[in-house]
């Protein structure tokens, strides 16, 4: 799942658009989703689905699967909101809460759409370079960049270890989970020693700073116009309280 979504972020049709624009777009929509009415939220959800599936060309199966994962949490919380308990532990269905639940669902799905739009259209390092320009402390930035690189080293190691376990009919017992975690932990030390040497060999020592380079992007007028008009429309809708 990690690798799949990450790959989409690099290969989708909207990758070439400046990351700042995508981040701003998603962020503005997120604010409207949080503050707006259910109509606004529904529009955001549908509009972003068009962006994700239509413009970015993310397969609808991937979209549906990710949506399902979110729905899981939402559905799990619904009974707690709908069922009411009074002091004598009398359980009853609270119909007045139905409206709250519905608005909660529409807000969550809309807000989630904003997040998902961002993550399938913008590669992680490019999102980070936006953060970097927003003057996020460099210690955090370096941690983000290095961590991101190593996530895929460990993911591959974990995957291969797991396949090797399965090849010998293992991987079914929780003790095997422990073994796998232990092996991965060993890898940390091993990689750490090796990486440290390799970096020293390249003359990197002392601060060990990380400076992202500029990626070249272009602005797509067609998408820009749609975004601006759409955002204005939604803003107007929220203002008149539609």
């Amino acid at each position, binding site marked *: 799942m990690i690798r799949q979504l990450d*790959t989409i972020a690099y290969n989708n049709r909207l990758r070439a658009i400046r990351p700042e624009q995508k981040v701003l777009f998603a962020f503005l929509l997120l604010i409207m989703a949080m503050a707006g009415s259910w109509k606004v939220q529904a529009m955001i959800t549908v509009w972003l689905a068009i962006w994700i599936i239509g413009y970015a060309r993310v*397969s609808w199966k991937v979209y549906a699967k990710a949506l399902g994962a979110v729905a899981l949490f939402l559905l799990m919380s619904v009974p707690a909101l709908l069922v009411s308990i009074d002091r004598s532990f009398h359980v009853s269905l609270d119909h007045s809460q139905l409206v709250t639940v519905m608005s909660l669902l529409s807000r969550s799905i809309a807000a989630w759409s904003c997040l998902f739009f961002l993550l399938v259209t913008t590669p992680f390092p490019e999102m980070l370079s936006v953060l970097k320009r927003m003057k996020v402390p460099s210690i955090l930035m370096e941690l983000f960049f290095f961590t991101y690189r190593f996530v895929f080293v460990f993911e591959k190691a974990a995957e*291969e270890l797991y396949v*090797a*376990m399965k090849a*010998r*009919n*293992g991987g079914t017992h929780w003790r095997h989970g422990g*073994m796998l975690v232990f092996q991965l932990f*060993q890898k940390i030390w091993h990689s750490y020693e090796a990486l440290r040497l390799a970096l020293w060999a390249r003359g990197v020592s002392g601060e060990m700073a990380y400076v992202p380079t500029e990626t070249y992007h272009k602005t797509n007028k067609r998408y820009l116009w749609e975004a601006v008009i759409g955002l204005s429309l939604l803003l107007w809708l929220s203002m008149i309280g539609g």
Partner: protein
Amino acid sequence: MLTMEEVYYAYPDGPCVLKGVSLHIPDGKKCALIGHNGCGKTTLFLHTNGLLRPNSGRIYWNGEKMDYRRQTLQKWRREVGIVFQNPEHQLVAPLVRDELAFGLHHAGMAKSEMEELMEKALDEFGLRPWLDKPVHHLSLGQKKWLTLAAVMVMNPKLLVLDEPTAYLDRRQIRRFVEKINDIYHNGTTVLLATHDVDFVLEWADIVFVMHDGQIVMQGAPQDIFARQHPLQEWHLDVPLLASVWKTLFPHETRIPRNVEEMKQWMNEQALGTV
């Protein structure tokens, strides 16, 4: 022994890797698979004991068409042992003895039988001195040796090896190959993937050439490597011995499999011309 018919496979959301592989691994032969990196060799190996399930196509093991039910898989995986390329990502247990016991635990064996098999493997692979060592204290060559032992302790009928000789030095390679030959002589069919074409020429009974997700050529190594032209097209090298031989005798169609055979043939030719 193992037959694949028109096997297609694509990773989820990825491009197609196997594009209609058909091959037959006969019982009791030394088989080698060659092909450049990225042609689908590793993916093919993951199909040999059901770790991946083909999108379409059929796989037969000992004449039986394989389904992917739990029981079938368990038996199948016990009978086909795979040694993967990178030992760092294959050894799971913290101790050498646990690593050996790992597969046996799941074969549903009695304890006494398990111990017997362990003892046998310990002797065969000379592992006694390492028994209580943690796996991460071993060198890369020793780890590779251990992965082989941990697979062979299960007594598989088919042994599949992915790049068994990479990163090993000559002495380690020689020892590894000797062991593989022992295994073969004890009745296990062997299938391996390698880039070392000189080794393939000397060792293999059957060579499968893979290119772009298909088996494009198969046969005895002497025949395969005698045809330089198609090999170059698939970015494969001709064995050094073959190119020496072709340089010496451009009109010979046979190829010697090793230096001794070459010497012998040359003597015969010398006698013939005399």
